[in-house]
Each structure stands twice: as C-alpha cells, then as structure tokens.
C-alpha cells in the first residue's frame, strides 16, 4: 500500500462523494420519496461514506507515519517534540518529492520538512512556466481536517433530517407578510436544503485537500456561494436575502486582498503550489519546480524564512532592466550577472515588501472568511440561515477555513505579518466577546462567541503557536457545533431565539441541557488544572501559554496576553449567562415552556456524539495518538525554533512553541485561564442564578457602554456611512455622467450632423407634407414607418458615407504626402 497513491485516492473520493450527492439531489431531489424525504438519506449516506474514506485515510496515514511519542499532553514536557516525528518525515519525503530534500536534515527536527504528499489531478491553464491546476497536498493536517469535517458534517446531516422536518410539507412563514395581508405560503424545501449542504461539503473538502492557492481560492468562493444559498435559504424573508448578500460581499472584500496576495506571489514566483512539483521543462527533461514552501524556506537556509529570488528580482526590476539592457546582445551573460547580484539585492531589502504584501493579502482573505475584525460583521447576520447550517458552515468548518489557510500558508508569513495577525486576532476576540455579553438572541451569542474563538486561533498563529491555533480549531469545531445544535434543539422546542423568553428548560429538555453544559464547559476550558480537562482546556491553555511566552519575549506586545486572558473571562461569563438564562431558574414565558419538549432521538443522538468528542478531543490516547501530537507531525519546517527577526516593524521574537509547554509560563497560563474562567462563571451565576446582582441594574449603571455594546459598536452603521453610501453615490454619479455628460455631447454631435444632413430632408418634407413642425426636429419622430425610415435615414447614411469618404481621402493624402516627405 503506497500512501503516495492511496491517500490521494481515498481523500479524492471522500471529496467527490458529496458532489455526486449534490448532482443527484439537484436533478431528482423532489422525486426522492414523499416530498423529497429520501434526499436526506442520500446526502447523509454520501457524507458518511466520505467519513469512512477519511477514516481509512487516517488509518493509512498512521500506519506509515505513526504518532509515536507519548507526547500530547500539551501540558507535558517540552522534549516530547523531539521524538514525536524525528523518524517519520524522511521516508515520506523520499516518496513525494523525488528525493530532492529527503534526508539531509533528518537529524535535526527543527529543520525537517513535515511528511506530505502532493500532486496534480488536472490542469486549468498552462502557458510557459505558468500553470494553474487542481491537485492535492496531503499532510497530517489535511487528514485530520478531513476526518473532523466529515464527522461533524455527518452528525449535522443526521440532526438536520429531524430539524428540517417542517420542510417536508407545505409551509406557512409567519414572519413574512404579503401585500394582501396574508402570510407567505410555500411548498417545503427539504431536498433543496440537503442539496446545498452536499455542495457545501464538497466545496469545503476541496479547500482542505487543495494543493495550491488558486485551488483554495476556487473552493473558497464556492463555499462562499454555498453559504449564500444556505443563509438565504428562507429567501422570501428580506432579512435572510440581505444577510446572504452581505456575507458574500463582505467576503469578497477579503477576497480582494487575497487576490492581491496571490498576484504578489504569482507575478514574482510564477507558482501557487505549496509543495514542489515535478514536470518537464521545454527540453523535455524532468525537473523539480519548487513550490511556495520551499521557495520561501529553502533547504539552503535550513528552512529559515528568506525572500525568494523571484521576489528580489521583481522588486529590483529597475536594476534587472539595466543589466539586461547592458547585455542586450548576450542574454546569458545578463542572466548570470543578475543571478550573481540577487543575494546583494536581497541583503539590501529588495522584495521584503512584496513578501509582506503576499502574507497580508492572503491574510485578508482569511479575515473575511474567518470573520475577523474588521470584516466580522457578516457572521452574526448569517444566523438567518437554519440552525444546522449555522453549526456546520458558520462555526465549525467554513469560517475555520481562514484559520486553516493561515496554518497552511504559515511558512510564508514574515514576522511582521504574524504581528498583524496576532493583533487582529486579539482585537477580534475581545471585541466579539464584549458584544456577546449583551446579546439576547441565543444564536447571536453563539455567533459572537464563534468570532471571538476564531480570534483566539488567529492570535495563536500570530504569536507563533502553530499547533495551538490549529488545535483550537479542531476542539472548537466539536464544541461549537455541539453548542449550535443544542441551541437549535432549544429553538425547535420554543420556536423563538430570544433567551429572555426562555428559562427553566433543563427540566423539560434534560439531554439538550446536559450536552449544552458540556459544550459550555468545553469552550471556557474547564478542567482540573494540571490534571485533566475538557477539550477546550488543552487548546485554550496552549494559546494562553504561547501568548504569554510571546509577551515575555516581546514586552512591548504584552497587551496580547492581557487581551487573551480578559477574553477568557468574558467567554466564561457570556457562555454561562446563556446557559443559565436558557436552562436554569424558572420559566419566564409560561406559554413557551408549556409547549417545550425534548427533541426527537434523531436530533439528540448527534448531540451526544459531539458532546463526547467535546470532552475527549484534547486527550491523548495511550498509544500517543492525539490531535495535537498529530498536528505536531505537520508542523512546517523551520517553525519549531525560536526566531528573532523583523523586517519592517523592528525586531520581533517568535518564541518556539514547545517552550510555552514548560515551567513557569505553562503554570502561569494554566492558572490564569482557570482563574478567569472561574470568575466568569461565578459572575454569571451571581447575576442569573443567585440574583445577587441584577442584570438590569448593571445595564442601567453602565448605560452608555451597554448601549454601545448592544448596538454592536455601531459597526454596521459605520460601514454603511463610510463604505456603502459612498459606493452607491459613486455608482449613481457614474450613471449620471453617462446620461448627463457623455450622452449630451453625443446628442449634440448627432443634432449638428442631422441639421447638415437634414437640409434636403427638410425640402422633401415641406413638399410632401406641406407643413413643417419646428419642434419635430428636436426629437426623432416616434412610430415611424419602415418605408420612412429607409428613405429618410438611408439618405443620411449615404450622405455620411460620402462626406466621410471625402474627408478621409483628403486626410489620407495629406498624411501620406507628409509621410513620404519624411
């Protein structure tokens, strides 16, 4: 079993199966069983097959690249990393990269390339040295993402089959009022829902398996459009279609940056592949074309970051031009002189900005997709979609794609970019957490919580915590999808999103309440310090530890740790505020609580499955297998050691990640996390259970802040004023320039021409009709007959031709005479 061929096959099939389901449901969905009921079975079967294939791929992976170390306990010793993958990478690289850099650095794990397989399925465009293709890049991260995405998607498909049962029959939407005063009535859309869900799964897995940035961009846009379909699922609601458009357009703002990043890479380097690829050059000789990862961190620098030659030359284009022109007749000399000067130019700093732009650009795309400040505004609105969608698309998978891409692209990021990422993440996590404090819509709280947690992941990546950030991505995927599904269960029971009308639901919905409590505990990182905890305990602690380590190494940036810790406190408060308001105490609305009931088994089972994973996802199995340990296997080459550098914003130290797992840093972080989480829960309990503090009184005392937060920091209003309105203004300006300026000129020319051409037409008309309407000359007479048109305007046409031709010949002879003279 050769993993280099097995893995692409298994994961490729896992990727395409949902597409098959999408096509089948697209054409036959409504005919699948009564009201399309069986389309749920088709879609679910497809995603379960994908899950099985992904698990097979995981097995294959582990059989070749065993996660050996007893390592992950992320709280354990630093040395765990040393042996976790020392022997796993060499052979795989021999497989995938044609021996080019296989074994020379096998002795030093800091400089080792992670095991990965890559290749192309087919080509979209090829011209010269440039090639855009559809291909794969499979490392431990890819395999893990496949398993997690397909697992969560399977749970959500099963859940949705129950949740969406309203769509199995005709449906009256009470939120939509028609002009005749009645409510909107429509047939169910059960199959359409699963059709979109399947397309989404296909697109999402496409991002995960992608072998190059262009392919990521393709599927990036496709998940965007799936999200558009799913947010706008109830498209008869104005709010839903508005939210769908907002999501897509705000994401396009991020994509704008992403395109710039891609251009910076493509223009200078001519490749968007992550890994090296082999191909034939023009002479038909097999050559290795370096990918982004080895261009930016080549073996020659021991995988330390450096500005690639292409970028140096691109930035030094003036000098290249000089040399090329000097050697105009002997191009080989020019090329070799340029090559010899590249290192000097690099030392002078040529190309640094380009690499920075590339990193920031790609990050912009992630800011949009992962709802980071300042583009987070679309995600809360996206909650207009059905709740299973919120759980799958808008919390666990699609929005995590930005973090995934940053993880994938991490080796290319300069320290300056990392700093920007860290600050963006910190601002996001804090800002979103503050808004979540006062939100009363249960899904809105979770939406802001998602934004905040994504901020944590970005912060982690920014401060050098590659494993920490991606680890949190996985644990978060489990507990956030769990939380959303629980909220869906509550909404299903209460028919409202408003937490102020809930309360005391724990008695009627014990399973939902219990699993949701697990989710809340996981997200706040609950655990017994230094002993054991839920999944969030491990991932969040490693983020805090890395942030602390970074703050200590760069004291001027210690605000990052403060923000992360403060955010942990806010997280604990708003999550338990949510739980207490929903499940604890007495029912606030008798009508709602009377009708509330536990959800059917088909919905509860996925809750339990996800709850179990929300507990154990951070643990290490006795054999050493654990998510964090497996991630460590995929760590990009050259990122394991502490690096001090900095190009643009001064010197910056990115501390090695394993240093934050030991000693004082680790202890401080763990205790800080525990203390803040406990304080948050305590405060929530004081306000919403024991009622020592009245929430109303607190809100009244801090009225300006409360209003400010309640209005979501006025971001929507701000963007409306500084972006939307000006754009619409420019749009109508452009339109009126066309009508008012350009067309006026044209009309004037036409009028003049017509006056000239119309002299004989005037005579004609006076003779024929015997009257001249003076105003008729200002407008072309309407309803003119075919005959009239031909006689009247053909004459003009001929006249134009004659005048034009004469003018032309006069001009031509003039021009030619002078040209002959010259």
């Amino acid at each position: 079993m050769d993993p280099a061929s097995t893995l692409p096959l298994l994961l490729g099939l896992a990727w395409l199966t949902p597409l098959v389901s999408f096509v089948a449901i697209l054409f036959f969905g409504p005919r699948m069983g009564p009201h399309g009921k069986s389309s749920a079975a088709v879609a679910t079967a497809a995603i379960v097959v994908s899950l099985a294939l992904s698990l097979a791929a995981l097995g294959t992976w582990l059989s070749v690249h065993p996660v050996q170390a007893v390592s992950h306990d992320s709280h354990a010793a630093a040395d765990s990393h040393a042996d976790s993958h020392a022997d796993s990478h060499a052979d795989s690289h021999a497989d995938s990269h044609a021996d080019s850099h296989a074994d020379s650095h096998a002795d030093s794990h800091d400089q080792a390339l992670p095991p990965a397989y890559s290749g192309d399925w087919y080509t979209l465009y090829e011209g010269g040295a440039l090639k855009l293709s559809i291909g794969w890049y499979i490392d431990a991260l890819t395999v893990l993402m496949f398993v997690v995405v397909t697992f969560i998607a399977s749970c959500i498909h099963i859940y949705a089959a129950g949740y969406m049962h309203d769509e199995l029959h005709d449906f009256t939407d009470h939120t939509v009022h028609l002009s005749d005063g009645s409510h909107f009535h429509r047939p169910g859309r059960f199959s359409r829902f699963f059709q979109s869900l399947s397309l989404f799964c296909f697109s999402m897995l496409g991002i995960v398996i992608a072998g190059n940035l262009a392919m990521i961009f393709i599927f990036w846009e496709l998940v965007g459009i799936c999200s558009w379909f799913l947010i706008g699922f109830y498209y008869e609601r104005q709010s839903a279609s508005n939210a769908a458009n907002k999501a897509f357009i705000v994401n396009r703002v991020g994509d704008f940056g992403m395109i710039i990043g891609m251009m910076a890479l493509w223009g200078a380097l001519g490749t968007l592949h992550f890994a090296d690829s082999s191909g034939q050059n023009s002479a038909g000789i097999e050559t290795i074309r370096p990918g982004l990862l080895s261009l930016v961190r080549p073996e020659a620098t021991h995988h330390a970051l450096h500005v690639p030659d292409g970028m140096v030359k691109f930035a030094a284009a003036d000098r290249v031009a000089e040399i090329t022109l000097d050697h105009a007749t002997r191009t080989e000399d020019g090329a070799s002189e340029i090559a010899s000067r590249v290192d000097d130019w690099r030392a002078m700093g040529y190309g640094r900005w380009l690499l920075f732009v590339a990193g920031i650009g790609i990050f912009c795309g992630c800011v949009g997709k992962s709802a980071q400040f300042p583009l987070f505004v679309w995600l809360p609105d996206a909650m207009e979609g059905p709740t299973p969608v919120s759980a799958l698309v808008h919390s666990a998978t699609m929005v995590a794609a930005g973090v995934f891409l940053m993880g994938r692209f991490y080796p290319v990021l300069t320290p300056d970019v990392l700093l920007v990422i860290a600050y963006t993440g910190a601002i996001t996590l804090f800002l979103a957490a503050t808004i979540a404090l006062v939100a009363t819509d249960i899904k809105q709280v979770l939406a802001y919580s998602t934004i905040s947690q994504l901020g944590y992941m970005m912060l982690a990546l920014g401060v050098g915590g590659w494993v920490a950030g991606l680890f949190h991505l996985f644990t978060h995927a489990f507990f956030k999808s769990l939380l959303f599904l629980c909220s869906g269960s509550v909404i299903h029971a209460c028919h409202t999103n408003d937490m102020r009308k809930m309360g005391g639901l724990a008695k009627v919905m014990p399973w939902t309440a219990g699993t949701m409590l697990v989710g809340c505990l996981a997200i706040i990182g609950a655990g017994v310090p230094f002993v054991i905890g839920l999944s969030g305990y491990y991932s969040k602690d490693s983020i805090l530890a890395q942030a602390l380590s970074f703050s200590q190494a760069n004291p001027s940036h210690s605000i990052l740790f403060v923000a992360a810790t403060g955010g942990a406190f806010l997280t604990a408060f708003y999550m338990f505020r949510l739980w207490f308001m929903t499940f604890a105490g007495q029912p606030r609305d008798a009508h709602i609580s009377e009708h509330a009931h536990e959800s059917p088994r088909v919905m509860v089972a996925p809750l339990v499955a996800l709850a179990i994973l929300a507990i154990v996802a951070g643990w290490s199995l006795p054999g050493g297998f654990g998510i964090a340990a497996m991630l460590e296997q995929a760590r990009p080459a050259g990122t394991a050691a502490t690096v001090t550098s900095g190009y643009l914003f001064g010197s910056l130290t990115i501390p090695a990640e394993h240093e934050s797992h030991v000693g004082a840093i680790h202890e401080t972080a763990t205790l800080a996390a525990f203390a803040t989480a406990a304080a948050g829960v305590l405060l929530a309990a004081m306000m919403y259970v024991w009622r020592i503090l009245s929430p109303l009184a607190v809100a009244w005392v801090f009225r300006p802040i409360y209003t400010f937060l309640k209005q979501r920091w006025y971001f929507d209003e701000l963007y409306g004023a500084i972006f939307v309105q000006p754009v619409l203004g420019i749009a109508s300006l452009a339109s009126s320039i066309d009508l008012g300026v350009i067309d006026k000129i044209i009309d004037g020319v036409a009028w003049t021409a017509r006056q000239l051409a119309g002299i004989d037409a005037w005579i004609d008309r006076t003779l024929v009709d015997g009257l001249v309407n003076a105003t008729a000359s200002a407008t072309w007479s309407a309803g003119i007959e075919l005959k009239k048109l031909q006689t009247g305007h053909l004459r003009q046409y001929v006249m134009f031709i004659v005048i034009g031709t004469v003018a032309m010949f006069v001009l031509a002879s003039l021009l030619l005479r002078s040209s002959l003279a010259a």
Partner: protein
Amino acid sequence: MPPMHALSQPALWPLSAIVFLPALVAALLSLPIIPKAREEFIRWVALATTAVVFAISLWMAVPGLFGAIGPAQFQVGEAGMQGIVKLPWIEPFGIEYLLGVDGISMPLVVLTTFLSMLAAAASWPITKHVKAYFVLFLLLETGMLGVFVSLDFFLFYVFWEVMLLPMYFLIGIWGGPRREYAAIKFFLYTLLGSVLMLLAILMLYFASDLRSLSDEQLLAAHVVSPAIAAAPREAAIAAIRANDAPIHTFNLLALAQIGQSANSPFAASKVWGMSLEMWAFLLLLIGFVIKVPVVPVHTWLPDAHVEAPTPISMILAGVLLKLGGYGILRICYPVCPGAGLSLAWLVCGLGVVSMVYGAFAALAQKDFKRMVAYSSVSHMGYVMLGIGVWSAVAGQEYRWDAWAQGVNGAMFQMLAHGISSAGMFFMVGVLYDRVHHRNLNEFGGIFNRMPVYSGLAIAVFFAGLGLPGLCGFIGEVLVTLSSWNYSRVLAVISAFTVILTASYILWAIQRVYLGAEYKGPHGEALTPITPRELSIAAPLVFLAIVFGVAPQLLFNYVTPTVNRQVETLADWTRRHDQSAGSVVAIVPAVTRNEVDASGESRE
C-alpha cells in the same frame, strides 16, 4: 495563381459556406416568391440555416466529430494560420479574397455560429415584419463571420461595414420605444470608428511594401501561396522582387511581418511628429474600442441593448463586442508593435477604467437590461486589460508567459462572456416577454413562480459574477493575475472590481428572483419556462459549466496561437531594445556608471 488550383483549396467551400450561406439564404428569402405571410416557414428556414452553419463550423473546429478527418479541418494545437483560402479579387490594388482561421479566430467563429443559432431560436416572439427581420438577421451573421475569417484588411473592412447596416435596422425597426434614438447613436459611434479605421487601413496600405519581406516571410504571410508548386511559386516571388515601385498590400499577415521587421516603415515614417504606426494604432484602437466598448465611448451600448429585441441583444453582447477585442489582438498589436508597446498603458488603463466604471454604473441601474449592459462594459474591460499587459520588458528579462497569460485570459473572457452575456440578456428577455417591464424594483419572488427558469438564470448570473466552476471565473482570474507584472496599481484596481461585481449581480438577483412576492404588473403572466426557451437557456448554462470546469477545452485551441504571437512580440521587444540600446551604447558609459553610483549611494 491558376484558378483551377485555387478552387481546389480544401477550406474554400467550408469557410465560404460558413460566411456566405446566411447571406445566400437571406437573398433567397428576400425574393418576392416567398410570401410575407409564411412567417412560420421563414422562421424555420432561418433557424435551419443558422443550424447548418453551426454544424459546418463545428465540423471544421472539432476534427473527427462527424467521422473522418478532412484536410480542411482545424488542427488543434497548431499555432499558425490554417484553412487558408486565397483568391484574387480586386487585382489592381492587390485586394484578395483571403480567408483563414487560427486558434484566435476559430473559437470565435464557432461562438458566433452557435449564438446565431440560439438567437434565431430566440426570435420566435418577433412578429413584426418577420421576413425583413430574418433577412437582416442572416446578413448580420454573414458580416460577423466574415470579419473573423478575413485576412485581407480591405475584405475585413467590407465585412465590418456589412455588419453595421443590418444591426442599425434591427435596432431601429424592431426595438423598443426609443429605438430610433438608440439606432442612430449606435450608428454614429460605429460610423466614427469605421471612418477612422479606414483611414488607418489606407495609411498602412500606402506605407507597406512587399518587397521588403524575405522569401520565407512572403510564404508565411501567404502573399505567395506556399501550397502551389515550386516553379510558379518562385516565379511569383521573382515577380515581386522585379517590381520597381513599392507593392502595397492589404494582407494582414504581411502587414504584421512588415510591422515587426527591424526597419519597419510604419515606425520609420513620421506624420506630424508621430510615427505612422502610432497614428495607425490609435485610429484602429479608437475604431475597435468603440465596439468593445470602453469608457468613455460606451454609451451607445446601454441604449442599444435596452432598445434592441432580445435576440439582437444576445448577438450584440455575445459577438459584436468581441469584434473589438479581436481586432485589437489580430491587427493592432501584430501590425504596430512599437505603438503597442508605448501605448500599453492606454490599452490597460482603458480596460481598468471600463471595469470599474462599468461596475459602478451597473450598480446604479434600475432597468434590468441596462444593468446587464453595463456589466458587459465591465467584463469587456478585462479583455482590454488582458490584451494590453505587455510585461515582457527588460525589467522582467523579457519573460513572455505573464503577458501570454493575460492574452489567453482575455481570449477566454471573450468566449466566456459570449456565453454568459448572451445568457443574461436572454434571461432578461424571458421575463420581459411575460410582464413587459424591466424595472428591477418591480420584480421579486420569481423563484417561487418560475423555479426552473430562475435556477438557470441564477446560474448564468453567477457565471457573470465570475464564480469558480463557471466560465466567467477563468478569464477574470487569469487577466487579474497577469496584470500585476505590468502595473501594480492597475492590478489592485482590477482586483477591486470583484467586490463591485458581486454587489450588482447579487443585488439584482435578490430584487428579481428572491423575495416573497412579485411586485410588478402582469403577475398572472409569469408562467413557467417553455420548452423553446429551455432549449435556448439550457445549452448556455451547460456550456457555462463545462468551460468553467474544463477550460482546457478552449485553451487547447487558443493557447498555441496566442503564445506564439506573444512570444514573437516578446522577441520583438528584445530586438527593439537592442537596436535602441545600440544607439544608447554610443552614449558614454559614464552615464550608466553615474546611475550605478547614485543607485549605490541611495542604500
């Protein structure tokens, strides 16, 4: 050349049939023996004609599709001109009936025949003067196809004009309420372009001299047919050499050879302080960009589209606009490379301005069809940008592939836009036929009323939005990515357009298809899509998906030719720099040392 041999040229009948069959049928239809009242008969004859022409073009373009491969068929992957047809026409001026296709024109020919067939099918709702309509329609098809296959500049111009008149009447008679205004506007703009183009043609003609070409070049340009026997071939070459006076030519391939030669007469002769090739390039460019159209000569387009009947809009957007891009690519750059290099900023700038301006203007429209028309302005801007990004310069060591990517992207964009814009106009037409208005704010809820139609329409609009997996994406992404190497500023602005495109398309979809209920008049007329409409819409959607998923199907045709043209021009740039450099080299080396020193001192 002996006529017997000429008539045995393999591509003579297929290419001539593609071009002239519509005109022939139009002539027959216009005979009085066809009664005007037989409208259904006339429709079917016209549709059958377009279908036959489509079949012949497909037979040519896809070898082996209908059985054995004939010598007239197109060889995919071959970069050069194929299917040459060469007959003398107006001998005193050296004007020839010279036709041929290559990777640039072949796909456009098939696009034209395909869209003409769909447009003929979409013409069923036309009830006014049916006979005259189809006669003009078929004449229009002849004009368009003739432009794409002509290799003689004069013939090119004749077809260009042949196209203009039917279009004028088709808008002016069968159009909407302001049809006359729109027709006159279209006419004035296009006439201006034609006049300038004719001027440029004459300039180039009188400055050209076939004697300056080598034997190989004469053969390559088909001035002397390489297909004939060696003896008459050499005699023909000798006859050219023996001539005392310059031999002028309209042969586009020969003009390109002359224009790219080291001592190009176009570059050498000056007219009012500017080289002749600059004049020719600018005049041709104006003529072509009016057709594209680019801002600020685009205002004929929205009016023409809004007033034109649906099938004519499909033709207008799908094919006519491509003629501009085709002309720039086929004529301006190869014939006037020096001007192309110095005016690359103008071509790219016009492209980017059109992209942004068109997108902004589309955002402001309240008329559905006008919105789609402005989207065409925006999308055709990509074509201009892609053609113009001349990044094969010294600073990039004459790397040609980035520019080639832009040109390939532009070609793809033309073809993709042909599909998506024709589709969009058709989709608007389907609604207009039912409710007789196009006010974007008076639709809504169409998805509930016409689900199949709405699904197809949304797919087509997504193709226009540039969604991956649909045809609009590939061209846009290739052009945008390639523009970085030419100019960072233009690249960033062009990338910005994606936001505006998403905005106007999604907003339009929301207002028309989504929502709870239809808000406009004649709501009762919103009946599901008919089989005839479906048979027009479905192929367009199908092709939008096929070309989006497998762009190689088109690139197999386009890339070899485009790459060769761009490589040739990149080589030309190098030679151009060298010859300029040999002049510079006389300038004391001190100057350069100073530059170096000042460069060093900066660090």
